[in-house]
């Protein structure tokens, strides 16, 4: 009976913390530098007794009191003729947004694409990264049809860590979950592929597929815990 009471009390408290049940993560996710930094800054401020505005994230320049890093749940797409086509890498990115509660207002959604440390040095052939919004459901692991994609960004010579502002897209997904069909990421080879660079190209593409890491950093503002910022008077 005591155990049941404790479990019930724990459940009630976890609900207060915004959780439905005790989380049991399947695998540990890496904590990005920005979350670590914000956490450490808050801890330092708490020790020194400095005043803290818990409803704004100074490091990101936005209002918000909950920061979530959503892991990519998508998968790689393989074209049968990838070695001959101009595509180096194709991936569907998918982020599970329903974790955002109704009372929360989205203030930031930033896609982070980490292409890995190797891309800082030897990129090999000239590459271009293209990011599309998937607008129509696909069948299985099929590659989205070009007409059903909306171009979001194009980055020549992609390297290191890239960030994309997806606030409008995330707001749309949050309001219409059925629209959340993911993003299509493609890294293309610019120009003609000749036989001389083919070996190097395959190596670069394989490294990119191995090291690519995508995540969506979402900041929300809970209206019950934070009041909206008042507009400045003229």
């Amino acid at each position, binding site marked *: 009976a005591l155990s049941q009471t404790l479990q019930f009390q724990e459940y009630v408290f976890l609900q207060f913390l915004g959780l439905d049940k005790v*989380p049991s*993560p399947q*695998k540990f996710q890496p904590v990005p530098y920005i979350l670590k930094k914000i956490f450490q800054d*808050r801890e330092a401020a708490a020790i020194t007794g400095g005043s803290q505005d818990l409803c704004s994230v100074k490091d990101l320049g936005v209002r918000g*009191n909950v*920061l979530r890093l*959503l892991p990519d749940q998508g998968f790689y797409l393989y074209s049968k003729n990838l070695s001959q086509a101009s595509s180096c890498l194709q991936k569907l990115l998918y982020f599970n947004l329903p*974790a955002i509660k109704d009372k929360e207002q989205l203030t930031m959604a930033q896609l982070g694409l980490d292409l890995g440390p190797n891309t800082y040095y030897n990129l090999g052939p000239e590459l271009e990264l293209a990011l599309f919004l998937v607008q129509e459901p696909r069948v299985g692991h099929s590659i989205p049809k070009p007409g059903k994609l909306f171009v979001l960004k194009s980055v020549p010579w992609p390297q290191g860590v890239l960030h994309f502002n997806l606030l409008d897209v995330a707001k749309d997904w949050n309001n219409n979950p059925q629209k959340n069909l993911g993003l299509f990421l493609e890294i293309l080879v610019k120009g003609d592929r000749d036989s001389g660079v083919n070996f190097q190209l395959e190596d670069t593409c394989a490294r990119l597929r191995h090291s690519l890491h995508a995540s969506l950093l979402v900041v929300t503002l809970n209206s019950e815990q934070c009041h909206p910022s008042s507009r400045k008077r003229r």
Partner: protein
Amino acid sequence: SAIPANKASCKNLCHRHQLFINFRDLGWQKWIIAPKGFMANYCHGECPFSLTTSLNSSNYAFMQALMHAVDPETPQAVCIPTKLSPISMLYQDNDDNVILRHYEDMVVDECGC
């Protein structure tokens, strides 16, 4: 005016005590990434009428203590947190999302009657 209490009774007066919350003890270390625990503290002690003015007391506690003095059926004023501060928690939820959230009123900074 406050009546000075003797040394022995001072120990029993309302004040802040240390309480470290270790998430491992709660079995929460599986999902909380940081911190591993935190000094939450707690308030405990008596709020005698003679000291209600010096123990960071509310006017209400003073009145309650006054009533207790004239009518012992009225309970004594109680020792409670009067200033709390938040902590930040970094954890992973069931969808493998890493979440940084600030929780209000998690640490007792000051106690009073």
